[in-house]
């Protein structure tokens, strides 16, 4: 785990700092809009004293020895990070120097909300659909679910999202806002959520959860509506993937000898399928949940851009464009941590479901 995170941080560092000449790579940092605090922080990150390189421009010039070698820069960054200092972010639109950690996590809450909603959709649709498909092999429900899952797996998310928006706006245009507080703007069907951050107290930063915790039900409904389309769009691919996995493992399991014995014992079909087959068939699906989480977090980048969702994914492109190393590192490391932890949880789950595996 430590190895994975460490190697990833090196990789990202090399990608953003090592491939370009230092003057280019560091250019975004050398901007007058970074105040003295920023300068200090930068100097610390680069491992140089502000006294030897007094001006911002000096940082970027290789001649007077202000630029330390790449490994030195990495060392400086690593020491800062290990002491809890993630530096400032260069994201455009943020005045002055903003703390990377704060900016990241205020946005990350939105990404988390979106991904969790999509994950819930994936599980509650994908697993039953896979089961139905397998138990009705080559009958109508199988064909339908196969088409839906393959379709979901093949549809470009950005396009699917755009089409959903189009249909939604058409609906609002034709029928009036009705249930929705639609202003006509594409992504902000939830007017209050994003524009008035102070409306409710923030516990988690996720609008849905916060609204629930503060018993603000109109707000809750609004945020639910807001997340609906992006979450469906994000979930569509993973629903397809999960359905296919559950279907094929379920079909494998239904062919197993122990299913034959279970049926020969005179058990009801329901018992055979849900007790005997599903427990075994769910194992492959559990195994890939790490991959599914990676799917969701990766897909979130595109979906957030399409829906102008104020999460981290939406900011990733801008961050990459300005070579905002602090933001990108934090982003990559947090997602990697989530995926690695998911895999650990999978191991635990596995040993609970399958008695043959002991931790």
């Amino acid at each position, binding site marked *: 785990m430590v190895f994975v995170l460490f190697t990833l941080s090196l990789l990202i560092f090399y990608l953003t700092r090592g491939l370009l000449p230092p003057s280019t790579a560091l250019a975004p940092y050398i901007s007058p809009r970074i105040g003295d605090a920023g300068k200090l922080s930068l100097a610390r990150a680069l491992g140089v004293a502000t006294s030897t390189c007094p001006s911002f421009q000096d940082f970027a010039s290789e001649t007077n020895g202000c630029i330390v070698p790449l490994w030195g820069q990495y060392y400086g960054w690593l020491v800062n990070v290990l002491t809890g200092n993630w530096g400032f972010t260069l994201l455009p639109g943020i005045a002055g120097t903003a703390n990377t950690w704060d900016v990241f996590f205020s946005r990350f809450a939105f990404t988390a909300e979106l991904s969790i909603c999509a994950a819930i959709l994936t599980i509650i649709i994908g697993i039953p659909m896979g089961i139905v498909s397998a138990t009705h*092999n080559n009958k109508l429900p199988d064909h339908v679910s196969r088409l839906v899952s393959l379709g979901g797996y093949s549809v470009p998310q950005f396009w699917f999202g755009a089409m959903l928006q189009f249909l939604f706006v058409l609906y609002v245009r034709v029928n009036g806002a009705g249930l929705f507080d639609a202003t006509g703007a594409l992504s902000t069907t939830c007017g209050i959520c994003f524009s008035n951050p102070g409306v409710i107290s923030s516990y988690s930063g996720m609008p849905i959860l916060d609204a629930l915790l503060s018993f603000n039900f109109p707000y809750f409904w609004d945020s639910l509506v807001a997340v609906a389309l992006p979450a469906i769009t994000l979930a569509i691919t993973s629903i397809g993937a999960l359905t296919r996995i559950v279907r094929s493992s379920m079909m494998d399991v239904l062919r197993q000898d122990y299913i034959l014995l279970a049926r020969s014992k005179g058990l*009801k079909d329901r018992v055979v399928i849900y007790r005997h087959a599903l427990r*075994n068939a769910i194992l492959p699906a559990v195994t890939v949940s790490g991959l599914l989480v990676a799917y969701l977090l990766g897909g979130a980048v595109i979906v957030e851009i399409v829906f102008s969702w104020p999460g981290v994914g939406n900011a990733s492109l801008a961050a990459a464009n300005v070579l905002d190393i602090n933001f990108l590192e934090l982003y990559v490391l947090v997602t990697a941590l989530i995926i690695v932890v998911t895999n650990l949880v999978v191991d635990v789950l596995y040993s609970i479901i399958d008695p043959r595996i002991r931790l």
Partner: protein
Amino acid sequence: MGKVATETVLDVNNLKVIFHTYAGDVKALDGVELSVRKGEVLGLVGESGCGKSVTALAVVGLLPPNAEIVSGEALLDGTNLLAMGKDELRLARLRDVAIVFQDPMTYLNPVLSVGLQITEIIASQPDLFIPEMIKNRLEEISAIEKSNGGLTRELQVEREKLQAASDTNRLGNDEQKRLTQLYAISILKSVRLPEPEKVFKMYPFELSGGMRQRAMIAMALVRRPKLLLADEITTALDVTVQAQALQLLQQLKEVIDTSVLLITHDLAVVAEVCDRVAVMYAGNVVEVADVTELYRNPLHPYTQGLLASVPRVDVVAEQKSIQGSVPDLMFPPSGCRFHPRCPKVFEKCPNAKPTLIEVSPGHLVSCFLFGG
């Protein structure tokens, strides 16, 4: 098939089964005739692919979805299993016909405990099992009474409660659960598993091959079936474990008073435990006889060949094999399906299908040499 005087449990008549595969139709069973008498062990022998397991699965309605029963009937005490509805058939499997399979590793569910795999049978239709469970527990209590010369207060209370319950045939939920568990453990004990309480909680992977086979037999035993289908139950076992399993099977047969259809490819096992034998070849029963009669006086050329090819542990003798190999049942030979390999083939064989006729009392053979 001649009417048999003795009472039969299972009568299979003219059973034809086809498997539809992507490559074509496999004519797996071609009119199987078979009857199991009450209280006997009938051996069903044949080489791999001859259809012996398919026969058993067809009888209990567990053929894979690509199988089609073209014709035939399987009468269990006079009722046709093949004409039953789904639920009726499920109840028949639950109560009347139990099947024990070959490989106890793959046939037990790896993620469920042995105990659960037994108790779920009872839980699926508890009212069917309550009288037996109460009777079993009362017997256990009496046994304790006998050995200890008295009963504790709790056991006395329990006995009274159970006696009351046996009149109404109703139990409370918790009581039912407790009795089910006790009953399952007593069954595990009766198949002579050591430390049944422990085995109850164990998972299949924690048991040895022989113990798993016993656990599977226990699952059949719980139901006290009229007919037990034992499908190659000793094939995956070592000789010493095989001996244990066969011994157990014989003893249990006496205890629960059932009939057994023992499906095997091992002629030595048949000779050891069966009362009568039916020999199958390529989807047909070709010869049926009393076990001593069959081994002393095999009539069908296939039976003769099969017996001559078995190596024996007691004498050194040259084994003779049957020429050729088992036909591909997608393209079965015409007429008598054995004719391409038969040393006594004559012009009639490829052109017509012989029928199973009784040549001497209790000895049936399907071959033109004997009329057919």
